């Protein structure tokens, strides 16, 4: 049986899979060091998925295992429904990836490097070289040698290499590295447009702000484990709410609120009150606080609800915050 026909038997099952990436009990050891410790990960299709973690948490190792760059010691995984490594060729035919910093043959031009990579893919990949270069914005420099490229241009070339296979799944490891603010903005737009085309983008990054702006869902990895995963909005919904109130008499306002049944912790600051409300507090409670203060004859200058950011949430759930050196 040829490998093509062998893979063909799994094609229908793969197309029906609801997950772009699925890993169960994935374990990878380097000697005594456990880089991945029974990772359970599910990345839904058609979204931008952030993959976050502190340095050394195992982000790149998981990507390398998923792509077959290194083997797993235990566990199962699939990409786009194709079991890896059993149907690795079929899976990777639909995957584009940057792992670590993108490095290329420096003596070749960007276009020639893509020709080398396109030759290893399907014949149609050669026709995608020009459009891919244009899409990442380096078409004008495509015939320069890569040694003359900046780090940001190499990142763009790496993304162009990902696009050669017209992938359904893109795995980008720190794609914002080396990009200037305008480049980061373009990269963000490109990721959004890729998702809009129906592709899945897995974005590994330590730039939490970028991930929050770009991604729909995230997974947090720490010490080789996935400690949280899900849509960002749901994850942040589980955090406490902080209400900042700027008013004319903060001390009296605190006393007024203390006499009510409104829960939460009230602290007086030079600019007003800081009220920390428990998880799940509704908008009506905010309105009630405003009403109590105003009816007490205190002028309210500003009232702002501060939702916890991805960064603050990330720091709270990972072990790095406050960890001893």
């Amino acid at each position: 049986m040829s490998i093509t026909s062998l893979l063909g038997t799994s094609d229908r099952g793969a197309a029906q899979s609801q997950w772009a990436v699925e890993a169960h009990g994935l374990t990878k050891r380097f000697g005594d060091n456990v880089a991945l410790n029974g990772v359970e990960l599910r990345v839904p299709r058609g979204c931008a998925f952030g993959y976050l973690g502190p340095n050394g948490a195992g982000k790149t190792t998981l990507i390398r295992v998923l792509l077959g760059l290194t083997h797993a010691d235990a566990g199962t995984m699939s990409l786009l429904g194709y079991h890896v490594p059993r149907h690795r060729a079929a899976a990777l035919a639909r995957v584009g990836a940057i792992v670590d910093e993108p490095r290329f043959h420096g003596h070749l031009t960007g276009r020639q490097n893509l020709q080398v990579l396109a030759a290893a893919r399907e014949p149609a990949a050669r026709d995608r070289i020009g459009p891919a270069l244009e899409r990442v914005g380096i078409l004008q420099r495509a015939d320069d040698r890569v040694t003359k490229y900046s780090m940001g241009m190499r990142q763009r070339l790496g993304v162009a290499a990902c696009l050669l296979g017209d992938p359904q799944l893109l795995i980008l490891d720190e794609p914002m590295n080396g990009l200037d603010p305008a480049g980061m903005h373009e990269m963000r737009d490109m990721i959004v447009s890729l998702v809009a085309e129906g592709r899945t983008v897995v974005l590994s990054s330590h730039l939490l702000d970028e991930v929050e702006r770009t991604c729909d869902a995230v997974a947090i990895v720490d010490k080789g484990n996935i400690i949280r995963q899900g849509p960002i909005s749901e994850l942040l919904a589980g955090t406490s709410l902080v209400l900042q109130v700027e008013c004319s008499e903060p001390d009296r306002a605190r006393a007024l609120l203390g006499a009510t049944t409104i829960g939460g912790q009230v602290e007086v600051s030079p600019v007003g009150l800081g009220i920390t409300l428990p998880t799940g507090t509704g908008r009506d409670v905010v309105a009630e606080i405003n009403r109590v203060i105003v009816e007490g004859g205190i002028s309210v200058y500003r009232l702002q609800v501060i939702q916890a950011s991805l960064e603050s949430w990330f720091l709270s759930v990972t072990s790095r915050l406050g960890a001893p050196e």
Partner: protein
Amino acid sequence: MTTVPDVSSPAPAPIPATSSVGAWRDHRGSWIPTGGMISTRFMELRKRRGLMLALILVTIGIPAVFLLIRLLLHAFAPHSYGPAGGYDVFTGLVAGVLYVFGFIVAATLGCTAGSIDLTEGMFRHLVVTGRSRLALYLARIPAGLAIIVPLVAIGFTVVCAVCVFAAPTQLKYQGVNVPVNLSSAGLQSWAAEHPDEVLCNFNLNVGPNSSIAAVVNAAPCGNGPGGGQPVFKQAPGSQGQPQPSQAQIEHAAVLIARMNYADYARQFLYPSTSLMVKTGLWIELEAAVGFIVGLGLGSLLGQRTVAVILMIVLEVILTPILSRAHIAHMINLQRSVVGLAVAHLEPSGLGFVFGGGGGPGGGQGTARLVPETTTVAVCVIVAWLVGWTILGAWRMMTRDA
């Protein structure tokens, strides 16, 4: 921001693939490399300017410069410097220069092709394409050979051209300038006209009491001290014998010429077409072996420098030693050295490969090597090619990218 499915609830229907259905059915799991993979690999190697310059310099530049200098010297001082080409120059350049340098150059290219994807970070890009790692490895073999074979061929062609077209016009046989292409009668006639040169220089294989020996012993050979009187070549105990007549001398010269004709007929002004073709193929075999072994070693080690050094040590130090020294307890190990095996396939008519140069008449190139049959030599070469290809491919297939 786009809408994301809830990871804890069933996902919506899968998004249609942007790729056409079955677009990946391109046999990328096959171990056979595609033409595109080979051609782009060829391009990647060819674009290495420094490496290509070094290869051209060694395979073409060194013999070309050597021959050019000989051409110029002969053109300006023909009496002091002999012709640039000829049979002896051919055997010397082939056995002493092209054989060794061709191997080193090919090995350098092989080590580069075997390791450079890894060191330059392209290996993981290639692996992520899903293409079979074995196919990625095998694509390097035809690509590298497409570079090294023409380079060696050009260098060899330069040597052949100069050795043929700038060959001597007179044959120097036993130190005597003799017209070429003489028949046996013609050589005897020439000997009758130049009896002194024949008697004093040509080989003589007769008994000491023969009449020819008596004439030869009495023949005037060279000038004596002071340059005046001729010195007579006399055997011990032959003093006092009467001087041979001119007719006796000429008769002896004719007889000696007749004896030497078979040897004379084997002398060449320039290499024959057959020898050049065989030698060209042999040099290409050596280069191909160097490339494929270097490719495997480079892939195995994952770096170029150490692999190149090891290949040079093998060719320049280990192989000559193991090919010449007859060590009784290691004779089979010595026979397994690929350089020795290739040397045993050397065409007859060339010189000793690790000593360089061919003597008059040639054909003694392998006489000083550790003995090995042609069958064993071929088996050793095939084993090295297959073995190193398996090792290199295995390492590439199991290496972390």
